């Protein structure tokens, strides 16, 4: 057996993390693609089935669905049995030319936890592909071809997109970048067969990517010390040799235990960033190896409860606040000591976090803690695994009324609305300017898709405050309300804790019922299982689009830094975050909103106050900035009244706005 056992739990944990519905996906595959993405590889064994028991006796999805009505269940099961339409698409290259022989992965965003297996199809000679045999639901689509990279969705920081059966998709692959150079030891001799890794720390604009899983690439030096890492996403990279971790291949290194040497010849703190552009080669990234013994970070892992039989735990060290891995090790959860030792660590600041899980996915994590390494081993650390929280509930699609359906605009809407075609996301609510906070691998958006009955569960959540967000794939739908039952059933939190989860940001919203979560805010305690979240989605959504144009005599607006806002004009929706919409205009100033609740809105375009992040935080989320937004919108007094099913795409929005008459 080549792959060392001690490595396995870490791989497993990482795989669980990737499969946990968190924002990790096959995006995490090493850029040097030699085989299907990790998810695929991991599943080429008989023993890594999806977590749900495919026991032939139970044909329904297991898990949180036990309490749904039996009749609904039977109907829904029937519906799930119906074959969905295929996803059709085309793969094109840099210049729009078709690419043949590309593997396309369609990964179901299924509500059940655990491993999901992608559908894999091959594009034909013209680059066309068709994914068939799909069950209704949402699918993440990605393409893999060695040396090429997918376009990155700027909002998620990940390649690929989410689609539903019946969609037509164009998948664009571009030539990745290359980093190449030579590694020599302090005597000037080539360093042979050593792993060189490149981690993307910023995009080319200097933005830090929102995902805690940076793009990376790896290759090994040859007999001349030469390495060549190809297929890299454009961006700014740090490049290093040695240091932690056998790669997945678990090869004994002649330099194991050494601290990593970052290009050109230093630590992470003194690393020079290397710029990588699509299809271009960055040469001469030569590294002088420091040949310096690394330190150890050791300690013990505490489990709050006895681990179930298939439980595995791992401890991970990342460079402080960045999420870039510095080392990891598996811990035997049922051994007496539960000790861990992460080696090959250079002086610097790190964040340490433990995770654990089994076939049901990741179920435990420790709070991340800061670890400073200064010239010596760090010993005696204690890490306590705490249960992760979850949020579950039901999404109901309310049919529109007879009168609404009678409207001309609403006549040609899809007949069957599927709850599975909704993405429910929670974003951890971060206090600003807290980059000094230890990095948690779980501090990222988590999403879930309801099953055919509308039941959903968001898992692997740390304690803390979250914001809800939605993505509806059917243009006819909008989110009408989000509610928690008045006496929220929570485990193990106390009733008082549950009360606090309700709507703390908008206490004075007079017409909101006590259980409404109009603020979209949810507070979670450690291990809490918040249930009963009720999401009501309605038919008759409007869409609204147009263009920002310069006011007479004004300079061209700075589109790239701008945001367009829709602010609810009706008093009763003043603090209902579901009625606030925000979009970034395209480079020509055009903008578009979908899935809007019908009603009266104030329309405002203004420069974003939050330009240092790749995905700016919506202005409506904070009470102060929401009030400011409303004041500005009321001052300009540009309004739009949206009727059910209305489609507006030619709205002209002047910037800067002219003062109201």
């Amino acid at each position, binding site marked *: 057996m*080549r*792959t*060392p*056992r*001690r*490595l*396995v739990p870490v*791989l497993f944990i990482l795989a669980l993390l990737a499969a946990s519905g968190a924002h990790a996906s096959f995006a995490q595959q090493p850029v040097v*693609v*030699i*085989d*299907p993405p990790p998810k*695929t*590889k991991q*599943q*080429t*064994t*008989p*023993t*890594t*089935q*999806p977590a*749900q028991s*495919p*026991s032939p006796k139970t*044909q329904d999805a297991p898990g949180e669905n036990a309490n749904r009505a039996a009749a609904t269940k039977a109907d829904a099961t029937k519906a799930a049995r119906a074959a969905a339409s295929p996803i059709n698409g085309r793969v094109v290259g840099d210049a729009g030319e078709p690419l043949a*022989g*590309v*593997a396309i*992965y369609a990964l179901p965003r299924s509500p059940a936890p655990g491993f999901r*297996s992608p559908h894999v*199809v*091959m594009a034909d000679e013209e680059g066309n592909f068709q994914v068939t*045999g799909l*069950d209704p639901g949402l699918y993440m689509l990605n393409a*893999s071809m*060695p*040396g090429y990279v997918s376009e990155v969705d700027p909002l998620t920081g990940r390649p690929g997109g989410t689609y539903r059966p019946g969609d037509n998709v164009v998948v664009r692959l571009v030539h990745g970048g*290359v980093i190449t150079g030579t590694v020599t030891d302090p005597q000037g001799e080539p360093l*042979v*067969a050593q792993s060189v890794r490149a981690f993307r720390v910023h995009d080319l604009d200097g933005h830090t990517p929102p995902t805690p899983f940076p793009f990376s690439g790896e290759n*090994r030096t040859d*007999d001349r010390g030469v390495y060549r890492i190809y*297929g890299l996403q454009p961006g700014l990279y740090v490049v290093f040799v040695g240091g932690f971790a*056998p790669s*997945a*291949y678990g*090869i*004994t290194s*002649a*330099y*194991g235990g050494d601290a990593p040497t970052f290009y050109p010849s230093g630590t992470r703190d003194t690393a020079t960033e290397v710029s990588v552009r699509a299809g271009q080669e960055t040469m001469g990234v030569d590294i002088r190896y420091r040949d310096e013994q690394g330190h150890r970070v050791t300690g013990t892992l505490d*489990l709050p409860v*006895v681990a179930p*039989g298939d439980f595995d735990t791992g401890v991970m060290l990342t460079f402080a606040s960045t999420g870039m891995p510095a080392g990891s090790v598996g811990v035997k959860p*049922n*051994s007496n*000591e539960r000790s861990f030792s992460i080696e090959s660590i250079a002086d610097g600041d790190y964040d340490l976090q433990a995770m654990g899980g*089994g*076939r049901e996915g990741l179920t435990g994590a420790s709070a991340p803690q800061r670890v400073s390494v200064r010239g010596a081993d760090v010993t005696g650390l204690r890490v306590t695994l705490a249960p992760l929280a979850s949020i579950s509930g039901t999404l109901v699609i309310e049919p529109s009324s007879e009168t609404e359906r009678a409207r001309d605009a609403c006549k040609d809407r899809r007949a069957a609305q599927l709850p599975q075609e909704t993405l429910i996301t929670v974003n951890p609510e971060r206090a600003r300017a807290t980059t000094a906070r230890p990095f948690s691998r779980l501090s990222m958006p988590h999403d879930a898709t309801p099953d055919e009955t509308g039941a959903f569960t968001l898992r692997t959540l740390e304690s803390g405050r979250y914001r809800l967000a939605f993505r509806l794939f059917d243009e006819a739908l909008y989110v009408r309300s989000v509610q928690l039952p008045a006496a929220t059933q929570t485990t193990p939190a106390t009733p008082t804790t549950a009360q606090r989860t309700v709507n703390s940001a908008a206490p004075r919203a007079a017409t909101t019922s006590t259980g409404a979560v109009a603020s979209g805010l949810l507070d979670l305690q450690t291990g809490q299982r918040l249930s009963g979240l009720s999401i009501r989605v309605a038919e008759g959504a409007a869409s609204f689009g147009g263009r920002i144009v310069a006011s007479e005599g004004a300079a061209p607006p700075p589109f790239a830094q701008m945001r367009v806002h829709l602010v609810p004009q009706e008093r009763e929706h003043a603090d209902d975050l579901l009625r606030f919409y925000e979009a970034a205009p395209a480079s020509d100033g055009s903008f578009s909103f979908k899935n809007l609740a019908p009603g009266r809105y104030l329309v405002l375009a203004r420069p974003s106050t939050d330009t240092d992040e790749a995905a700016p935080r919506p202005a409506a989320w904070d009470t102060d900035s929401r009030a400011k937004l409303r004041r500005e919108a009321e001052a300009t007094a540009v309004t739009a009244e949206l009727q059910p099913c209305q489609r507006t795409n030619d709205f002209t929005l002047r910037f800067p706005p002219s003062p109201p008459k």
Partner: protein
Amino acid sequence: MPKHSSLAKRSATALAAAFVLLVLLSTASASYAQTAFAQTASASYAQRETPASVTGRVREGERGVAGIVVALLSSDPSQRFKAIARAKTDAEGRFRLSNITPGRYQIMPLAPVYVVQGMSDNWPPGKLLTLLAGDEVSDIDFSVERGGVITGRVTDAEGNAVVAEFVSVEPADPNTQPARRGPFDQRDQMTDDRGVYRIYGLPAGNYRVSVGQNDESGTVSYGRRKVYRRTFYPDATETAQARLVEVKPGSEATDIDITLGRAVKTYRASGRFVFAETGQPAPNVVFGFGALNPKGQHVSSFGGGGAATNARGEFQTEGLTPGRYSVFAYPQQDATDFYSESVSFEVTDADVTGVLVKLKRGASVSGVITIEGLSDRAAAAHLLAQVRLYGYIESSNRSPVPNYSRAPAIAPDGSFHLGGLRPGKLRIVASADGTKGLSVSQVELNGANVNSSGIDLTEGAQLTGVRVRMVYGSAVIRGQVNFTNGPLPPNARVMAFARRVGGAVAEATGEHQVSTDARGLYVIEGLAAGEYEIIVRVFNAGRVFESEAQRVSLAEGGDMNITTAIDLNAPFKGGRR
């Protein structure tokens, strides 16, 4: 254990195997027992901690080679990726590893540019070395030769670079050992984004260099993009037409460019899984498929990427080259009551549809596990909780259809149940992760020993009354083999065997066997209390020399030293063994 221990040829397999291991070895419910037992094995070393040292030399011919890292690796395979100690050779090629905790190790140079003599075909690589307290071992020498390099570029029929393809290098002379450089990474043999490859550290000789798939059988290009027919340097698809590439020590064969033909067209196969009893579709069945060679044996097996059938029981696979395949369901970890037949189909020049695979109700076996050799009952109970039990159906051909079934957690009273078994001869295996010295001593069916016969299962049989006797041993034998009249022939292998004699479980406990190290030292751990017979055998050129049997009596947790003298002038016993 399933036969997953053979060396993984490809990284994907290695990773896959890692997950097999993960699931197979994932530990049972928490217990203090594991540590308590693990301590017994290492305690004896801890008592005499005076560190040891090792010196030696790495030379090329008579000249010492400077700057070579020599590493001491744990003899525990799970720890082997990490060097316990390492040292660089000085200008004369000498190295010194000092302050080493006594124990058993593999020692080897980590020098992938070099060919280490006598080590290319060893696994684990390196020399076995047992270090006693205060040992100062010298003259651990390695002879190396700088390997050769083959480099070139791989292009397709249109002249485009072929990226991330594995380049195969096979010695033309079948007597030459295949080149396997100690720490091997298959990515070192892949083309890069320019189609360029560079393979170094090759032993001198003539090689056939090729890219692509052997077309004797079908190939599953699952997610692997294009499939090319195997093409030898420079552009030959027949082995006989391959131009040999000569590699001389330390030299470089350049421009070994390979031009591939068109990619092989691949096809899709699809079908359904149904329950044989009802004909109803079987949703969420994790399926696998494999290519068959002309004899109908499986040459590869893919888990379908862990893909499962959809809500309508349908499955499909992509990227099949023309050839014969079979498709089947993988058993689920929580043993279900069903097993899958394996259905074969042929891909010629079109997609294959309508493959129907039936799930049949399997046989079941239930019984009880007992643990002997441990007087502490509570400890035995804790140990029992960690045991995992598997059933295997013996199979004569190389079937990738998983033929094993794992029992759910063992009940506190030791009872177990295995279900979903296909008909055939059942073997039962049990183990406990991390606990040395726990082994199955005997499997009984209704009181009769079925160790050698196995259990015959007929279709749908429901057997009860199986008893799996396990024995726990914590005693240790430390041996020293001394040779008189001789140097030992250079290729001789020396092994020590300990066989339990007398007592109820004598027959089944089987022989414990270990290799002796370069100095004739060995350690046998995990022995149950009892009488043992120790025999040392020397294997050389198909002949066996056997020492006189020595008897020792071991107490629970005992630690025994034993010395065996072997006269190399004495006549060899027996013939080929």
